[in-house]
């Protein structure tokens, strides 16, 4: 199935979207797309088939988000913890990712036409070289598109993301670029994998699990979370509308908490030293871009 699909909604679905879009629509929604394996078991098909159905559901969900006015979507596609699954399943997931990213590269014109910007968040060093290359290319060829943004968390956990950020800060201090007093939560926020994205307004988790499972823990500290029992491949537009309505109901309460979080900023270093922070953040971003360019052009030895 293609990454870019046209909306094929019934009149009833269109009406539902219009009603919910009369309220405040979240700008950024994150999904924990859970339940592919249980879907496969329920339908007595191979696990791979469940994951494939899960991807199809994502491709259908993106136009719904776009129709509602949600500009940015972040999805948890593959956790570092998933490497602990049976090797056969991990290999199948890597193959599925290869196919989908190759398809994405083949559809670059369509992505440009729809203005879709793809980012991958996670420790790509943990992935096979050929997949890393496909992902790096996907990020670079879509980086100037700006109508909608899809962040795909792959080889990701929130703790690993925070660990990498802390390591960068320690490296910055060792190199003399930063002083320890520069290391605040604001600095850490600016150097996370997601440093180019606003914080998600709403996190949706399917399949009845009531945990964050190490996903975007830093970013969703003041976001509302919607847990639903439906398995991800069975997720429909109506579930999405229900989740957005829940967000709208809780918006005012969450806004108060967000404002409080913004007020609790750590002002440790003198203001005149803030240039050190800006310089450091710039270096981190440059280093990431360099890494991507290097890997996107990498010739895979077979």
């Amino acid at each position, binding site marked *: 199935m293609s990454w870019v699909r046209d909306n094929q909604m019934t009149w009833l679905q269109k009406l539902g979207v219009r009603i919910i879009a*009369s309220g405040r629509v979240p700008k950024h929604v994150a999904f924990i*797309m859970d339940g592919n394996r249980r879907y496969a078991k329920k339908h007595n098909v191979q696990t791979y088939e469940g994951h494939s159905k899960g991807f199809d559901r994502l491709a259908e969900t993106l136009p719904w988000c776009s129709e509602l006015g949600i500009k940015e979507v972040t999805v948890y596609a593959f956790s570092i913890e998933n490497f*602990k699954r049976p090797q056969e399943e991990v290999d199948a997931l890597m193959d599925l990712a290869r196919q989908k990213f190759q398809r994405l590269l083949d559809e670059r014109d369509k992505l440009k036409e729809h203005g879709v910007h793809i980012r991958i968040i996670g420790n790509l060093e943990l992935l096979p070289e050929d997949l890393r290359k496909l992902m790096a290319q996907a990020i670079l060829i879509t980086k100037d598109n700006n109508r909608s943004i899809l962040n795909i968390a792959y080889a990701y956990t929130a703790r690993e993301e925070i660990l990498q950020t802390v390591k960068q800060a320690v490296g910055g201090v060792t190199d003399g670029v930063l002083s320890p007093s520069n290391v605040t939560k604001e600095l850490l926020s600016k150097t996370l994998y997601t440093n180019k994205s606003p914080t998600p307004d709403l996190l949706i988790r399917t399949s009845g*699990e009531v*945990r*964050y499972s190490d996903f975007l*823990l830093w970013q969703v500290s003041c976001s509302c979370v919607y847990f639903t029992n439906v398995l991800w491949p069975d997720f429909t537009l109506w579930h999405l509308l229900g989740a957005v309505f829940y967000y709208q*109901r809780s918006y005012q*309460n969450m806004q108060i*908490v967000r404002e409080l979080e913004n007020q609790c900023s750590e002002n440790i270093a003198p203001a005149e030293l803030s240039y050190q922070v800006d310089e450091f953040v710039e270096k981190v971003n440059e280093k990431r871009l360099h890494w991507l360019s290097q890997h996107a052009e990498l010739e895979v030895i077979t």
Partner: protein
Amino acid sequence: MATSVIYKLLYLADSARLLVLRLSHGARGRIGGILGDNSDTGTAIRRALGSKTLDHLAVILSKEEVAVADLVRVAVWSRAAGTAHVSFHDPWGRLKARRAALDQALQAAGLDPCRTAANATAEPHTAAGGRLPCVTLLDMADGKAAIARAARGLCERALVGELTSAGVSMELLDGCIVRGVGVPAPELAVCCGDVISLCGFLPWHASFTTFLLLPSLRNLSLCGFVSLLDKFSQCEQRGGA
């Protein structure tokens, strides 16, 4: 225009639904309180928990104002569940302002005065002869800021040549953050109100915590508490997303 009217009607209907839910929760609470007084508290709590352990129970409060008695009740019931830590997270730090009254009530219930992340020690509560559960008060300044504090500590060590960035491992960072806050990762977090959110609660600690919603902590009955533990005991922990 018509869609906007339908939306407003939907919003009103949902407000009514939430109000009914809150009122019925209150009514259940009062009935449950009577039942709770007559039953064997410890047995009911342990039975609800089943084979699961609850070492740390976190209660996340949002805008709801709660009484000291509501907090003490949860701490006392948690003792029966064999819980070593009970933490109350209130983003605004309103509970810290009422600490003296809370300490007095905790001591009257046979528990130790509460702690905050600021006076966290590496030493386990029981090692100093403390009584369980250890009650900790948390607020917005203990969430991301605790991670930043741990990071600064590691940077100081790097500055004197004790550490390099390559030497910063998951275990090292985890140890620094957990010691800095003084509580381990909770197995269960109860969000009080209409919405599930961390509300600034310790992000590092929340990776695999089970989150449950409780309409209100005020006048929570033993039945309500047991029902939460029962729900928690039925949550299956699976690996990966």
